[in-house]
């Protein structure tokens, strides 16, 4: 029967498309591990680059430390702001500004991250010079809308009765938020934060004009601090030599391992993960 054949063909087609869509991640991981593993050594992780051109040796410790510096700054700014905005979005629907806040979060999520970097350059870097602090500020801006959207979903999933119980005991609004709502949803809030931090860490575009580039180890947040994604970009595109390609591949392996371990970390909590994941796949 023709209709039955059609059904079978359709099932096979969808299965093929499903497989095709899942394949790239395996190819990428295999490729990155296969090519990157040759570059990894103890020196690669613990030393800064020595020498120039073909004779470069040492490692990318400066970029690992740079990533840590930048992410600390980004987290200190981005997480509190993101969580608070998320709390507003979830708890203050009656506010007059609500519509504007919601639109702004959506707009900020849509702004290309390279544009975020450019704006931070124009407002901040022209005064401070490129440094880990400026890089952290731009990554905070990238991270923040993701944190607020996922926090909003997490807090909205806390049953209304629990919150009202707090009000019935005479708690003020912020007390209910800090002592009841956020603790009740803390795992879901954390999942969002972990995924957003992991996502921000992999971004190179906002770093291009803000964190600066140096071969030396950054000593404070005022020093230029390239991050892992940034040196991958620089090594791959601006140093067309095999030594640097290999270094870019090694750095890719380290970066990918960290990114995937953030995903793994977030998967240890279930709950509202599904909806949070949906949000995070929209944000860059």
């Amino acid at each position, binding site marked *: 029967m023709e209709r039955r054949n059609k059904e079978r063909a359709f099932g096979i087609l969808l299965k093929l498309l499903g497989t095709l869509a899942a394949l790239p991640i395996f190819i990428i991981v295999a490729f990155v591990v296969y090519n990157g593993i040759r570059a990894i050594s103890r020196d690669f992780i613990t030393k800064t680059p020595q020498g120039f051109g073909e004779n470069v040796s040492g490692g990318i410790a400066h970029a690992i430390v740079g990533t840590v510096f930048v992410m600390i700054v980004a987290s200190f700014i981005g997480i509190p702001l993101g969580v*608070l905005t998320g709390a507003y979005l979830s708890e203050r629907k009656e506010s007059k500004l609500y519509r504007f806040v919601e639109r702004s979060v959506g707009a900020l999520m849509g702004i290309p991250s390279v544009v975020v970097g450019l704006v931070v350059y124009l407002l901040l870097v022209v005064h401070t010079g490129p440094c880990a602090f400026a890089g952290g500020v731009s990554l905070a801006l990238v991270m923040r809308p993701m944190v607020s959207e996922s926090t909003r979903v997490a807090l909205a999933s806390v049953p209304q009765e629990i919150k009202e119980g707090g009000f019935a005991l005479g708690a003020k609004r912020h007390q209910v938020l800090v002592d009841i709502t956020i603790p009740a949803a803390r795992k879901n809030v954390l999942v969002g934060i972990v995924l957003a931090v992991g996502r921000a860490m992999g971004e190179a575009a906002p770093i291009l004009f803000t964190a600066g580039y140096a071969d030396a180890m950054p000593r404070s947040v005022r020093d230029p601090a390239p991050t892992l994604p940034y040196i991958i970009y620089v090594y*791959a595109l601006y140093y067309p030599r095999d030594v640097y390609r290999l270094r870019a591949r090694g750095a890719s392996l380290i970066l990918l391992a960290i990114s995937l371990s953030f995903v793994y970390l977030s998967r240890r909590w279930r709950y509202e993960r599904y909806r949070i994941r949906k949000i995070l796949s929209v944000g860059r």
Partner: protein
Amino acid sequence: MRDVRLDDLAAILTIAIAVLTGVVLLVFSLPSIPYVHLSIIWDPVSRFFGILAFVFGTLYVSLLALLISSPIGIGAALYIVRYAPDKVKRYYSMIVEAMASVPSVVYGLRGFLVLGSFFGAFKANKLVASLTLSVMLLPTIISLSRASLESVPREIVEAAYALGAMKHEAALVALGYSRNQILGSVLIALMRAVGETMAVTMTVGNVVGVSMNPLDPGSTLTSLIATEFGGAMDPIHRSAIIFAAFLLFVISLTIYSIARRVIGRGEEK
């Protein structure tokens, strides 16, 4: 005493940052307005800044990527929702999550070194950029389409079965029911494609030109910003690049608001 409202402050700050971003881009791009032209020639030396080649490159690469990844992504979402067994579903969401978390430089490096090597001397061109981008768009399309397919009311699918539909016909009914949301997810993916910087910059070739041949290198608004802003010394040149960023900002917001409207229209049903 009034309740302390830190979250109000954060919310106002959010609005302020969004508005500030637009204003800053506009103000800093003003000096270049007399030098920006609707042309395909981009000549920083004689201060003639034709923006069209970059707009063309952005649209070309993004749309080609969408053309590749939407059928695959929507098909995969339909497979997961209507066909796949539970175990596959669970693993699939893990895979999609992992795909979404791969940094774009890693995608770019892979596109640059692996895909590019198929094309011999022309390592970087619009096709390589589109293929790289299409992989990056998959998680967005899959997870958003999947969510909208899952929110199709049970009654709709059951009604199709009651009318004697076979499995694939019921799946098509579900697909038709959520067409607005799926279109919305494709638009959100387009927004991401337009704004994607690193992977595109590493694979597109960064040659200013307008050519319909996908094997020719090109240049996009994002790759212009990434490659030229750092080295631009002339203030007018800088301002012209900021104008490109402003354009990118406007394009992204436009796509975002269209996507919102399309999704909203679907939800009213």
